[in-house]
């Protein structure tokens, strides 16, 4: 293709810069506000773009209270256990359904895909969790969302791409399907497993709705705590995090919690991101 005209190039550059600014600025505001001093934030109407005297006071207060520390632990636990459980169950089912000659493979695949068209609905799901006695249990945040059909389809598509000759060779060496999964398929599927695992991890970390209806507030994960602090308008001081006399502006603490909830995503993101451009996902979507 020929080189674009200078006007087009300038317009594109402007569009790109605008997009980048629109993504970055909200992050900058919350990070800056969380590091700003009490007085500065109040003087500026609740936020700053750049703190003149950066301080860690808001973070100290947030972690001193214990609520956020506990919620952080809950979120980490749910995320780790949930991701491992989901990844294992999804892998097993996807692998079995990726084998062409498996007994009952077609009807089972249809049964699974059909759920995509007809989700059961909020009330029946709620009644089921209640009926199974999972209220007030952390399992209610994991078991009802154990397998995501989209992730299953991605993994299955990837497993189907493993060359058939490798299966045959392993079989001739006397390996059964379980051994083939561990010795042949999984080592070849690290990229897909990483993507799907991180999808699960992100969705467990970000979830709050189920916690809000299934758990008492002292068992809440971080996102639900964040929701009540920042969105519900209840100030952190009200919840006994620190006494009202010498708190920094609740705004700085709210923003600190917001940053704490975002940081894990920002940490895993670079690892996750490199796979997206490689087309791990798009291959499966096409099938």
């Amino acid at each position, binding site marked *: 293709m020929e080189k674009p005209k200078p006007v087009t190039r300038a317009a*594109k550059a402007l569009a790109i810069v605008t997009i980048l600014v629109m993504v970055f600025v909200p992050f900058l505001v919350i990070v800056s506000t969380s590091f700003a001093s009490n007085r500065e934030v109040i003087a500026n109407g609740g936020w700053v773009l750049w703190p003149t005297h950066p301080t860690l006071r808001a973070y100290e207060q947030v972690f001193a209270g214990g609520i956020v520390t506990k919620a952080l632990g809950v979120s980490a636990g749910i995320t780790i256990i949930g991701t491992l459980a989901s990844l294992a169950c999804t892998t097993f089912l996807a692998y*079995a359904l990726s084998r062409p000659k498996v007994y009952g493979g077609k009807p089972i695949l249809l049964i699974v895909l059909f759920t995509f068209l007809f989700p059961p609905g909020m009330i029946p799901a709620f009644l089921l969790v209640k009926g199974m006695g999972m209220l007030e249990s952390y399992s209610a945040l994991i078991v009802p969302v154990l397998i995501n059909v989209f992730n299953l389809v991605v993994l299955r598509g990837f497993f189907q791409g493993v060359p058939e000759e490798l299966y045959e060779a392993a079989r001739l060496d006397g390996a059964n399907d379980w051994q083939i999964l561990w010795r042949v398929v999984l080592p070849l599927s690290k990229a897909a497993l990483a993507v799907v695992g991180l999808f699960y991890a992100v969705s467990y970390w970000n979830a709050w709705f189920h916690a809000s209806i299934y758990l008492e507030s002292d068992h809440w994960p971080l996102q639900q705590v964040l929701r009540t602090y920042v969105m519900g308008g209840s100030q952190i001081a009200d919840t006994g995090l620190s006494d009202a006399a010498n708190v920094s502006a609740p705004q700085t603490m709210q923003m600190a919690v917001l940053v704490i909830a975002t940081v894990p995503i920002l940490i895993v993101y670079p690892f996750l991101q490199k796979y997206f451009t490689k087309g791990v996902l*798009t291959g499966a979507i096409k099938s």
Partner: protein
Amino acid sequence: MPAVTKDRTETEAVKPPGEREYRPNGNKTKRDERWKRFHSSRVLLLLMVPGVAYFLVFHYGAFIGNAVAFKEYVPFDGLWASPWVGFENFDRMFGDPDFWHATWNTLFLAVLQLVFFFPVPLGLALLLHSLTSDLTRRFVQSVVYLPHFLSWVIVVALFQQVLADTGLLNSVLGQAGLHSVDIIGNPDAYPALVVAQVVWKDAGWGTIIFLAALMQVDEQQYEAAAIDGAGPWRRFWHVTLPSIRPVVILLLIMRLGDILSVGFEQMLLQRQSVGPEAGEVLDTFVFWQGIVGGDTGYAAAAGLFKGVVGAILVFAANKVAHRLGEQGVYK
């Protein structure tokens, strides 16, 4: 030949004791063939157990719970002992102005998102695809994918922070001597706010599939069109667009299936601040009636209504796609 070897090695590898007497003794009937396939699949079948059990219990099992829509739910009696009431819940629902209000809001926001959100990822993908520097493109891609991974709680909080009456936007406007704008908690601005949030969060992520489709377009077609004297716009219209049409239609149908959900978490988070008049959609209606209000049967009826309409939309859209000679989601 390989099939025989496979079966032999496998049965030798894992043979439960006492298995032998059940084995067919070589005469090839249809049942034997079937049993053989079952037997050689047993490891895989075992691997399927947790996943299949999950889908049976938490999707199909839960689905049966929709029966509560035809009942007067008494928590003490539980789902099955509660009395049947026929279509009473539905009758009440169709006469309930709040329900129609929620339905109207749902449809309005859904159409708004379809019109104003759906083209954005496509446009962004075209922009990214047209960048000549690989490094720049990678960088921009990484940045615009990021918001997709933030929770709705965080996204809504970010928007509040930037757009509140004392927020960043209004200070900038104030310093420029302009009027401040009232966005957060303003029912009139709510639909625009909702669409803006969806665009901010998911437009970048939505480019992935379009970018992949654009990569597939044959470079020679562009060259041929250029030689024939087609400018950039005509090349786009006659080469790019036809090549990515199946993907666009596929995504449109998938979006239609989900359209009545209009982003439940996003809606629920902001329903309070904007009020039910503007903020109530079908999903929040179900949540408010059923889980907060305890009117379980009634809420389930509304949820079932939404599910059925959603399914009809997918079927209809798929049918239209077939008529237009496209593949659609299923055949």
